């Protein structure tokens, strides 16, 4: 690819204006959503000790999330405008409704799991929270993929799977950290499986992005990605070999793995900023597709009329 031409090296698209709350929410939303599923299934299998802790993790995740999102708004007091309408073309709109519904269901389910006082509403809320938690964990990837940012948009088929792995990893890691080792075997399997999937899928995504993966190969995003890998490796080792017996190893391993999941979300978030700031990332692939004849582009050099019509020309046509 030849070096793309640009206007004084200025970006073509705008960098997101989102601040630290958003990548943190990617983590807490996935944690909340997948924890609800883990809790529901653990309860189903009769592991109430694990289920109660997982419901707590789910509640923590979905309770912190709206606060993070509201705090990121330019007009926080207008957060309720998110529920003015339901728009399928806006993953943020869909996600706002998902988070609201999952939050309500998780609140009821967690209250019932700990107190046992809401058996009837709990019976409805538990499967609802578990089911809604699944898309809650992946829609955030759809949200950022549905932008003009090349490193996100061109990874649109992979990003939701990367986020799903991260959600499984987060839910598993939190439950490992909170649950007595004897009851935490499913959580350990979830954390280890999620971590493996996260690392593999992220590598695959970068490979598929080709030249567009540049933001992951240098700078902040690269550092965060490396940090995530280190955390996942160290945390997985602790969980795999120590957490079955030691409560301390469980707590430490789970915490380190959760930190890895958080760092991985930050890496993806930061990659979007670098991608948007680089006019070459935006213009290069567009120009290449035009030159290959795959796309016609938005410019046309031939006029659809042959004879100039002076009466209809620009007022300044006499210049030529």
């Amino acid at each position, binding site marked *: 690819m030849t070096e793309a031409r640009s*206007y004084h090296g200025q970006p*073509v698209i*705008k960098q997101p*204006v989102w601040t630290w709350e958003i990548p943190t929410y990617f983590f807490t939303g996935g944690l909340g959503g997948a924890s609800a599923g883990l809790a529901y299934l653990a309860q189903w299998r009769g592991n109430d000790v694990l289920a109660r802790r997982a419901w707590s993790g789910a509640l923590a995740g979905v309770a912190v999330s709206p606060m993070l999102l509201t705090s990121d708004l330019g007009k926080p007091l207008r957060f309720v*405008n998110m529920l003015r309408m339901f728009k399928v073309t806006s993953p943020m709109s869909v996600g706002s409704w998902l988070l609201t519904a999952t939050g309500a269901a998780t609140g009821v389910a967690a209250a019932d799991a700990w107190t046992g006082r809401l058996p009837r509403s709990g019976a409805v809320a538990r499967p609802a929270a578990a089911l809604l938690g699944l898309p809650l964990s992946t829609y955030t990837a759809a949200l950022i993929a*549905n932008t003009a940012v090349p490193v996100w948009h061109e990874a649109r088929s992979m990003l939701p799977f990367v986020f799903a792995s991260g959600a499984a990893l987060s839910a598993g890691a939190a439950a490992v950290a909170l649950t007595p080792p004897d009851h935490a075997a*499913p959580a350990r399997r979830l954390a280890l499986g999620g971590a493996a999937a996260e690392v593999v899928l992220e590598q695959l995504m970068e490979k598929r992005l080709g030249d567009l993966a540049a933001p992951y190969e240098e700078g902040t995003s690269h550092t965060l990605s490396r940090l995530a890998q280190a955390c996942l490796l160290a945390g997985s080792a602790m969980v795999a070999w120590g957490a079955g017996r030691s409560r301390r190893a469980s707590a430490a391993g789970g915490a380190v793995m959760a930190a890895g999941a958080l760092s991985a979300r930050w890496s993806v978030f930061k990659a979007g900023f670098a991608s948007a700031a680089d006019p070459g990332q935006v213009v290069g692939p567009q120009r290449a597709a035009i030159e290959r004849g795959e796309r016609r582009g*938005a410019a*046309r050099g031939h006029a659809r009329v042959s004879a100039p019509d002076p009466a209809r020309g620009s007022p300044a046509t006499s*210049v030529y």
Partner: protein
Amino acid sequence: MSESTLKTIAWPDSYGERAKPRMGFFTDTSVCIGCKACEVACKEWNRIPMSMQGFTGHSYDNTIDLGADTWRHVAFVEQRLPVDATEGGSLVQLAERAQAVDGGVQTYQEGEGIRWLMASDVCKHCTDAACLDVCPTGALFRTEFGTVVVQEDICNGCGYCVPACPFGVLDQREGDGRVWKCTLCYDRLKDDKEPACAQACPTNSIQFGELGELRERAEHRLARLQEAGQAKAQLYLADEDDGIHGAGAFFLLLDEPEVYGLPPDPVDTRRDLGSVWAAAGAAAAALGAGLLAAVFGGRR
């Protein structure tokens, strides 16, 4: 000429009887003189706060880009012509040009070593507007004139439209939190007035009118420029078959779009939304399967 190019597009779907003909801008950059009257008129009429004050060193462009506080932006491109360029005729002229290039003399007149491109950029008011599609609150809407406007009393500053716009038009205003952009002077249009920038433009580089009529005018202008030897003259966003189904604000450029900071093939991200939702759904299902496997795939 194709039917779709000349047809005046209204918005009967959403407005029915009250739909007006689609209005837009034809920015003919070949007659732009870089006076920035459009920027000033826009700022004054729309009461836009002060933006960056300083010097960029990028030719005469100290506005930098479109954003919350700049709804018109005049780009300045200085292009050094190759010394052996054959256009422009006599040996004397060629020698003069070579001397100008070697000596670093810069002048706005073509044929003396430097070509100066100027273009007033603005929100494109896309037919398929990504900002409007992704806005979760409905603050962004399509007016009866086919333009795209942000309702300042509804926008909650979620920022989704900012990276969704393929042209980088929208941005959040500092200290305010909401996003702002060109309204194509919605208030003036309602009173049958032309937008402030078009009225202020002294060379009619910015032309305002019904889109079908503007497109027809642009075709004649393009033909005339090419006849006059502007081989790279091109219409940008004037057709319905590009990635945004054409725009309400389109341009006549004298070089490739990216030279002016414009994307050569902008696409509304909504076009890929089907595959995005499909992937998110499949990933959610995979997560469910993973959870099942983790809980039931071993000892309790």
